[in-house]
């Protein structure tokens, strides 16, 4: 068991390293660099950057060096836990991400809780009462949820919210409170703003999970052990929840690995549309500006999250599914 864990850990470190190299290279692939995007931005706002100034800036940021030198420079900072300077923001990367990280987590966790709170019961209900009216309704809504792109839904809900309910547009705080230090009023304000992004972010996932839960549970319900449990007089509730549901949960556990990076980056497009101050829009902006320190750090963070998440989901599976545990022992 320990050897297994150790092997997984070493692999994880190697994977993260590979992710860092790949992300750095991929970010450098498009033509131009941060300075050329800076010049483009300057000219769009009617300002002037001379060719010599551009060259001096390249030197100042070390962009005139080969890619591997830039990578090593960045790695040296990463090892020290500094991550470098976000070029466009003029602030250390850790601060720029830090500002947004925990708000991102709040939004994403809310979305995940909502997803699970809705998907699990509905999925179970749909399976147990297959082909009932309720099942059809859930299936119908589920398919719509799957089919509608979430950014589209975001736009529609936002416009409707403004048109019909005169709601604030986008963001996580009211204007008056965005600047204010933390207080109960501000926390309450955040909670009031949460449902819309949480519903939008969660809906597609909910629909998907309902379908998965329903299909898995249907498979299980037809198995002989359920019949025999029922035949021995176990209560219906116990028959379903104790065994088949637990087995059907397997895919939930194995997707935890993807949930963690999702918690950090959210959905980029939806956050952008809803103007949420989260990490997603930051990544997009960093990629457009070719700010490789910021973009690289975010991608690296996502890589680490995926690796850690996969590790956690392995452990979860061990816990939920005794069969896997037994295999481990052999």
């Amino acid at each position, binding site marked *: 068991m320990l050897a297994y864990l150790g092997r997984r850990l070493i692999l994880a470190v190697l994977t993260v390293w590979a992710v860092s190299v790949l992300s750095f290279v991929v970010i450098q692939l*498009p*033509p*131009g660099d941060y300075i*050329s*995007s*800076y*010049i*483009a*931005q*300057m*000219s*769009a*706002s*009617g*300002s*002037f950057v*001379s*060719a*010599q*100034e*551009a060259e*001096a800036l390249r030197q*100042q*940021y*070390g962009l005139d060096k080969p890619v591997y030198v830039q990578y090593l420079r960045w790695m040296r900072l990463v090892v020290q836990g*500094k991550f470098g*300077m976000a070029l*466009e*923001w*003029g*602030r250390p990367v850790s*601060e*720029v991400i830090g*500002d947004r990280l925990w708000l991102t987590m709040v939004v994403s966790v809310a979305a995940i809780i909502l997803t699970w709170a809705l998907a699990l019961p509905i999925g179970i209900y749909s399976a147990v009462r297959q082909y009932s009216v309720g099942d059809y309704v859930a299936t119908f809504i589920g398919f719509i949820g799957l089919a509608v792109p979430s950014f*589209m839904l975001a*736009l*529609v809900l*936002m*416009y409707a919210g*403004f*048109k019909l309910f*005169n709601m*604030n*547009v*986008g*963001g996580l705080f009211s*204007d008056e409170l*965005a*600047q204010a230090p933390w207080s109960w009023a501000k926390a309450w304000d955040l909670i009031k703003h949460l449902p819309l992004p949480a519903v939008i972010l969660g809906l597609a996932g909910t629909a998907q999970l309902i379908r998965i839960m329903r299909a898995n549970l249907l498979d299980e319900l037809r198995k002989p052990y359920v019949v025999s449990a029922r035949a021995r007089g176990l209560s219906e509730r116990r028959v379903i929840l104790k065994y088949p549901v637990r087995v059907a949960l397997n895919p939930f556990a194995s997707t935890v690995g993807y949930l963690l990076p999702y918690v950090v980056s959210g959905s980029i497009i939806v*956050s*952008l*549309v809803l*103007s*949420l*101050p989260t990490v997603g*829009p930051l990544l997009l*902006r960093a990629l*457009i*500006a*070719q700010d490789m320190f910021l973009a690289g750090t975010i991608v690296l963070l996502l890589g680490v999250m995926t690796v850690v998440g996969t590790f956690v989901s392995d452990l979860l599976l061990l816990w939920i599914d005794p069969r896997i545990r037994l295999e481990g022992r052999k």
Partner: protein
Amino acid sequence: MATKPQKWSRREFLRDAALTAGAVGAASALPGLAGVGGTARAQEAKIGAQLIGKLEGPELILDAAKWPKKFAEAPMLADLVKQGKLPPVEKRVPDEPMVVKPLHGIGRYGGTWRRGFTGPGDGENGNRIVSTDKILFWDYTGTKIMPCVAREWKQSDDGKSVTISLRKGQKWSDGTPFTANDFVFWHEEVYLNKDLQPTPHPDFMAGTKSGSLRKIDDATVIFEFQDPNFLFVDILAGSTAIGGGQATQSMDKRSMGAYMPAHYVKQFLPKFSSKDEVDRKAKAAGFDGWVSYIKSRWDWRLNPDLPVLTPWKTVSPINTPTWVLERNPFYMGVDTQGNQLPYIDRISMTLAENLEVLNLRAIAGQYDLQERHTGLAKLPVFLENRAKGGYDVRLDPALNGSDATLQTNQAYEADPEVARWLHTRDFRRALAMGIDRDQLNETFWVGVGTAGSVAPAETLPYSPGPEWRKKWSTLDVKQANALLDKAGLDKKDGEGYRLRTDGKGRLRLELQTSAGAFVPHTQIAEMIKEQWKKIGIQGDVKEMERSLFFTRIASNEHQIALWANDGSEVLYLFPRHALPLDPVEALLGTPIARWYASNGAQGKAPKDPQMVKALDLFRSAAGKKTQERYKVAQEIWKILVDEQYSIGTVGLSPATMGVRIVSNKLGNIPSRQTNAQHARTPCSSHPATFYYKA
């Protein structure tokens, strides 16, 4: 000037309505916006013209005898004075203040001006509000030069020097006196420091020779050149590197602006301590070295501690979710009754992660005054929600000729056949006459633009005359086809497109566009492509991300690129959208710009004698006096229009920063303001005089 009413007609409005809905839908991702187009647009057609008001604005009182003798201040500052934290107002405003006569009347103090911005790249959003730290400025019409930070200026008769007198008793926002030494400091320690400014800046040169500056006494500075530089007064007033003011020119990695708070900036320079010391400070703050650190310290948007001369100063920097500015207690401006400006206490700009959200917030009345990022295509929805949002809409047409200009690469050579045609005058004229500008105007400018060439507004002294707005720039399919046939492109394929003369199939022209421009260039290019079918020309529209767009131009790969020619209306202050002069942004051919900028040492000379003539004329202009200079500009415009290197479509429009959402609560708001780069819109309306009514 510029008060001439817009030619206004609603041609074949219904014909375009269907197209419009589609185009707007593509340009904006907001649902509902596209849908309401049909009905709202029909009403807007009538009131669109009404939204363009009379050009008006506050005026400076220049006669010292009429200046107020007693001063008053905002309540928030009066409290600080009482607590002993600030000197009294008489000690804070200069002995020679900038006296502004507000547009409608004396305002009330207080309030927070709510706006939207799009992130750290959107510095101009704030710069343009606080630009009264420029050395000289324009009046509200954008045509007459006015004092600003400088109380007075005098150009020598030979044009080799300009002397400026500062306002006696003026102070930085921390109370330290502002003197000629701050100019000398910038010149000697910053501008001449190779680490900070690697090369002399063209705005501070006459011809190829650098200018210099010198202190005469504490309140007098002289700028000197070896050759006549009559243009320099305009440069001091323009949005240039030397005259643009501290806020705009020493932000975002720049080191210009002609003066800097010496007492504050010194601590970050190696000369005044040691390189180790300043590097250590920089590293402690997370920067690589002192150069990047000092540039962030003298950036008014990033550093709340930086002493400034602007009406408001940053309290919460631009790299946070809310960029907040607060009044500068030492601002030099007062109204005619001696009330220190600005009236409004605070400006709070909230970050919008994308433009659709920003526009929707404007529609919802969450901004008090917003002219930036508000899209012309959304005008119908803005109008529909006016009453509900408690705002009004004002349109400020700009003065530049064309918001979507087809810039043909005059140095192109990758495809010799295409290059040959792009470099043929009759071919370019035919392309220009194959465009139905009225259809474009109705579709993308909701009919409020003006169709025409690249020439600027006729009201400007640079304009070659009204006929040059129309020349080669009206739809004439017959003549266009005749020109193309005559030029040798008379063979067509089965679909009616003209064939290349080298036998390699259809002649295809690449139209390169950039994503995310103020005007939807890609959709415009698509429509031009459709229109060109009638003259048998196949266009291929290629949209790309903005930095790739410029990278391709810099490496001489583009055939035709679409870009606005904003700024070209004041040709000498911002020529790069009209002529290939600056290798950084040379839409008419980067090799030509290299050749021009290096005096022929690098790059490639243009083959076209008319292009050479235009560039020669431009180079000769700085040494000429104002009236002669206007004549030269007119000559240049005539060449540019006649040659059609740049094909104009629709301009003189409010598409860029000209859709103004104004809260009904605000006072002293002009019904129309000059919309131009050199006027620093909205700064020429002196936002310091805006106020909240009751």
